[in-house]
């Protein structure tokens, strides 16, 4: 029975492999992927950021099941997630803690890249997409903060959306665009919800794709190599 199952599984694997070349791909990119010697723990931060991103996608999707994006029911639905739904508290708090973890990890990642000089030629595009990802992460944190529609999120968003106002000429106009009106209103909640759930995640995923593609194409940077080149 087990040998038969094994045979069938292998046959299926062969079938897929013949059509996708998945075996060579895993060999090249995973099991026999060559990394520079003397990698330290700072190299794990990009992978850690990816892990946090996946956690945020999973918990965020789960929250979307019960959250209602409206000024009347938004807060009540968040309360329901926290108090009534099994493990709802864990998922929501994971999402909130994960957002902090994301920024923390990204900044550490950035510091390590700067200190090791990994942003230098030919990795400029990787660096720039990474910078864009940091700003998008800040944006997604900012838009997500309003969604519970609590006193804290309301006033925090009021204060934060006031920031561009002193800009000469266009300041008040920018504030109006961000808020979708003169003040924080149901329209603000709806546009923040759209940004938080659809727009920013989609752009982030696309940029993460470019970022990872470039990391694999250019290979992991090896500061020891750069140094030896300079020395010699």
């Amino acid at each position, binding site marked *: 029975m087990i040998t038969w199952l094994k045979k069938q599984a292998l046959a299926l694997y062969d079938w897929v492999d013949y059509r996708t070349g998945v075996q060579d791909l895993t060999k090249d990119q995973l099991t026999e992927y060559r990394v520079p010697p003397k990698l330290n723990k700072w190299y794990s931060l990009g992978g850690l950021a990816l892990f946090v991103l996946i956690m945020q996608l*999973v918990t965020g999707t*789960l929250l979307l*099941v019960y959250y209602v994006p409206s000024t009347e029911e938004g807060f009540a639905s968040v309360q329901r997630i926290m108090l*009534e*739904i*099994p*493990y709802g508290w*864990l*998922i929501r708090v994971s999402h909130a803690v994960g957002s902090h973890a994301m920024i923390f990890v990204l900044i550490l990642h950035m510091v390590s890249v700067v200190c090791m000089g990994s942003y230098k030629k030919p990795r400029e595009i990787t660096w720039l997409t990474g910078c864009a990802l940091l700003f998008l992460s800040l944006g997604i944190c900012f838009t997500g903060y309003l969604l519970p529609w609590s006193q804290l999120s309301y006033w925090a968003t009021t204060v934060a959306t006031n920031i561009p106002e002193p800009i000469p000429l266009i300041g008040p106009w920018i504030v109006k665009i961000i808020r979708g009106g003169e003040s924080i209103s149901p329209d603000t909640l709806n546009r923040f919800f759209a940004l938080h759930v659809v727009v920013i995640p989609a752009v982030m995923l696309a940029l993460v794709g470019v970022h990872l593609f470039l990391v694999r194409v250019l290979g992991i940077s090896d500061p020891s190599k750069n140094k030896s080149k300079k020395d010699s």
Partner: protein
Amino acid sequence: MSETIDKTPRTNRRGFIQWSLLGLLSAWFLASLNMIVQFLIPPARSHKSKDLSIPLTQIPPGTSTVVNYKGSPVIVVNSDLGVAAFDAACTHLGCVVKWLPEQQNFYCPCHAGKFDQTGKVISGPPPEPLHPVKVEVVNDNIVFL
């Protein structure tokens, strides 16, 4: 010291670590999966119907409203005959009936069943009248008994 180190690969130790890691990951995965499944199971509606009442001003004469009472939709009308409430499920196939203010009767949008203000069938396929729900007006509040 270095000569004493055995250079042959310790396959047993490696296998042990691999299986431990796999076990740990599966345990973590199963725990997360359990959490997600529990989260997604439709929660039992907490219908501790804490003396549901509606202010009479919410349904002026001739209008109606549908409320959730003990987990099922109940339609409350303020018709010529006063305030009455019915289980909003049509007795035909269970669609939620609506109140037509102009005609002062209930209409089921699924198969055009019609009921009068007292819930009796006027026309259409419903086999029996709407099931009444007992309500009473106390201090300008409609109270479910």
